[in-house]
């Protein structure tokens, strides 16, 4: 077809090799729990550890709350900025860039500095620390959530739709329920799944705020066990794949591949 | 001797025949338009001349050199794209001089040629601007200059004006023709806009579904269409379904009205034919409708178009469209009223039914 296809296949094969070898290596390693035979024993062992369920459950729960908080903050903002307050756009976009400028370690440093002393001593109690954690996670996922919602609103030209609906006599509840949400569903789901993936894999905030999340659990497991971490690494990869896959599934034909970029580093 | 010659050129994409047996001879300095609806194969043919598509069969010869299988960068033809395709990272001068720079022309000569081109397109001093700083019409002029800078043997234009506003289109149209005539360069112009084709070309090639329908001067195409397609594609056309009464005398019958062409008809007596009439050759009157070449109809709509007034009449269940020339003292016909429509014999163009 096009010239140079040999080189194209070469480079992509090298890339595939680089990406797949660690995964294959880990998978094979995870099957070696029992000497001299391949089995899923490591997986059994990992899943039968109650602390795994505790950690994963905790992270999943935090993820859900983060998604909710994130949506509550970003959706109205994106909506009103598009519809009525376009002057605020530069400021809002600057704020969504802040999480990039303030990496997780720096963020948690600052959060601890402010919120570990009275009068705002949030780190004293578990419940309030969890709240702080959710807030931190929301900060990390903010750029992606806002971008997803903003792109979604722009794609459906929310201003014109709202005006059309109003001229046909629709009130606000109708507009929100029948016009905004259905059209935004894809964008919201994208943002939600991405946030979920970020939160479940996040190490820095959870570990410095001493909360029993999945990533710190996995880190500790590496020190104590050999095969279970391999199994959980594969599981972690599959969960991330599922999240990204669901985003692609719900958001077909979306050109914004960037929306899938995130994650702990 | 033809300067550009296409012989038996065909192009098939899988099962789809885009161009079928295209034959054309173009003289040096001639301006030829390919006119037709979307999908008729005009752009594909142009791209084969440029070298971006290879013909499935046939030959293309430019200036006695067979270029059928030569790559695009060896043909020395200049192409102007519909979307301008200016290189966004280069200035106007950079774009225009690009072809010369690649050919390793000395910098001083490039500079001189670029300036000459800028003068030609009436944009002197624009050399330092970037494409994003120019309007659509300006970008297209630069694209033209870029194609001409390399002194191509043939200039190819692929619907260059369709992305522009109506007013700019008309201005730029005459610019293109002026430049073409000044340089005397052989030009192929692809368009679906008949007004462009009619006003610019020395000859028009009307195409439909991959085939050439007719080749001729604008006057010939408009007034003596050879096929049904050409007749209905170019300009507005009235069609009266008639029967030949006396072929030798040129007499026909439309329902119960007598018509005459004033010259012998090539179809036998009794044959079912169509008489084609252009709106501008019809005249409105208040007669009784009993004369030859006189029909009676009732006015349905009157549209004032400025220089012309378009009147639509209904008669015998079908519609007749006629154009009146505007003048201040004109009395617009009344909707609902009956008038006679008459026409001279030579306005009748007879074609077979079907």
């Amino acid at each position: 077809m096009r010239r140079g296809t040999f080189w194209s296949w070469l480079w992509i094969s090298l890339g595939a090799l680089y990406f797949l070898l660690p995964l294959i290596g880990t998978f094979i390693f995870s099957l070696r729990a029992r000497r001299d035979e391949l089995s899923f024993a490591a997986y059994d062992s990992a899943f039968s550890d109650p602390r795994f369920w505790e950690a994963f459950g905790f992270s999943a729960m935090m993820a859900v709350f983060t998604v909710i908080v994130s949506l509550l903050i970003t959706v109205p903002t994106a909506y009103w900025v598009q519809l009525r307050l376009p002057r605020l756009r530069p400021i809002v976009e600057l704020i969504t860039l802040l999480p990039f400028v303030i990496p997780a370690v720096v963020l948690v440093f600052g959060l601890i500095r402010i919120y570990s002393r009275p009068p705002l001593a949030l780190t004293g109690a578990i419940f309030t620390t969890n709240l702080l954690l959710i807030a931190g996670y929301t900060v990390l996922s903010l750029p992606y959530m806002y971008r997803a919602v903003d792109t979604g609103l722009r794609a459906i030209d929310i201003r014109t739709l709202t005006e059309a609906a109003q001229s046909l006599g629709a009130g606000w509840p109708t507009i929100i329920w029948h016009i905004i949400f259905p059209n935004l569903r894809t964008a919201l789901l994208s943002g939600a799944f991405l946030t979920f993936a970020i939160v479940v894999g996040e190490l820095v905030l959870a570990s410095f705020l001493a909360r029993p999340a999945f990533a710190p659990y996995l880190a500790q497991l590496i020190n104590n066990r050999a095969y279970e971490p391999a199994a959980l690494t594969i599981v972690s990869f599959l969960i991330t794949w599922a999240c990204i896959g669901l985003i692609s599934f719900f958001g077909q034909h979306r050109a914004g591949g960037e929306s899938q970029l995130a994650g702990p580093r | 001797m033809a300067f550009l010659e296409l012989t038996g050129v065909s192009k098939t994409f899988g099962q789809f025949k885009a161009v079928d047996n295209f034959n054309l001879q173009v003289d040096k300095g001639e301006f030829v338009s390919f006119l037709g609806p979307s999908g008729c194969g005009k752009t594909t043919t142009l791209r084969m001349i440029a070298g971006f598509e290879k013909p499935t069969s046939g030959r293309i010869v430019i200036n006695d050199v067979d270029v059928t299988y030569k790559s695009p960068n060896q043909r020395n033809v200049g192409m102007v794209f519909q979307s301008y395709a200016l290189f966004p990272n280069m200035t106007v001068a950079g774009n225009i001089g690009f072809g010369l720079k690649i050919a390793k022309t000395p910098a001083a000569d490039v500079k001189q040629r670029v300036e000459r081109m800028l003068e030609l397109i009436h944009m002197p001093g624009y050399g330092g601007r970037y494409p994003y700083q120019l309007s659509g019409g300006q970008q297209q002029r630069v694209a033209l200059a870029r194609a001409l800078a390399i002194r191509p043997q043939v200039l190819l234009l692929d619907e260059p004006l369709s992305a522009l506003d109506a007013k700019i289109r008309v201005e730029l149209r005459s610019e293109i023709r002026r430049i073409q005539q000044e340089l005397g360069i052989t030009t192929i112009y692809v368009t679906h806009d008949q007004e462009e084709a009619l006003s610019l070309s020395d000859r028009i090639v009307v195409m439909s579904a991959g085939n050439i329908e007719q080749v001729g001067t604008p006057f010939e195409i408009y007034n003596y269409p050879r096929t049904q397609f050409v007749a209905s594609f170019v300009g507005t056309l009235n069609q009266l379904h008639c029967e030949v009464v006396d072929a030798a005398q040129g007499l026909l019958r439309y329902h119960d009205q007598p018509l005459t062409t004033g010259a012998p008809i090539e179809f036998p007596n009794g044959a079912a034919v169509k008489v084609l009439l252009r709106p501008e050759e019809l005249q409105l009157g208040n007669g009784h409708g009993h004369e030859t070449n006189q029909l009676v109809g009732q006015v349905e709509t009157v549209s004032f178009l400025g220089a012309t007034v378009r009147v639509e009449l209904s008669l015998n269940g079908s519609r007749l469209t006629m154009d009146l020339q505007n003048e201040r003292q004109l009395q617009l016909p009344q909707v609902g009223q009956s008038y006679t429509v008459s026409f001279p014999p030579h306005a009748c163009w007879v074609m077979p039914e079907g």
Partner: protein
Amino acid sequence: MAQIAQPEMREMPVSPVALRRVSWAWLGVVPFFLFAIAFMILPALSLISGSVQDRQGNFTLENIINLSQPFILNAYWLSIRISLVTAIGGGLFGFLLAYTVTVGGLPKSVRNGLMTFSGVASNFAGVPLAFAFIATLGRVGFITVLLKTLFNIDIYSAGFNLYSFVGLSLAYMYFQFPLMVLIISPALDGLKREWREACENLGGNSWHYWRYVALPILLPSLLGTMILLFGNAFGAYATAQALTGGSLNLVTIVIGAQIRGDVLNNPGLGYALALGMVVVMAISITGYSWLQRKTERWLR
């Protein structure tokens, strides 16, 4: 943008209805700003204030000056080095990969696979990634053992060590390549076919096209994304911590250690370190934005 808002407000009568409509909008964005202030701006400001205070709380620039200690400078230098290496390496190979599935003409299925995998890989970073590399290139890793048993090559005795600069860079590439692929692919898609044809038409070949048209057009995007990759690596913590256990003194690792305990013997210094990080990231983001805007302007 301001022009759109003003005429609307001028035309509307200043009635209670109009005021209410605009108030709803302002009310709607308040949570966002409150959140941003509470959890982003205040923490950042507190770090800045911490960095210019000494133990007693008096204003001092000493902490910032102390950033020039050898230990600190080495940390910054190490972070910069690894960020540069993975930004350039990641950028180049990522660009190549993106090229193969856009201009390079590989089938759509390969492209979809690459894009999806890139999305996954860039999220996989951190502990799982570190472990995957340990399981592959660690002392008893899959590849290490394979090379030893099949080809009798012992990479560790040849000097390779996963728990080092080289090993960490290799691991970082796992999320740098995908980031480049995802960001640069739209730019490669944006290369219009007509530019290539126009170039050919004017007598140029492939080399001319890339040298004079395609690469110059792509350069701002390429550079900008590499700068983004730099910032990305500079701020990374989890992968480094999980892989090297904190033995590599990157700036992020030092800050992490400082959070856990006063390893620098000077809390203010820790805050200054964090401030330095923010400055580097801010420069990186600004550079990226500026270059992106330049590209958009050209391709208007």
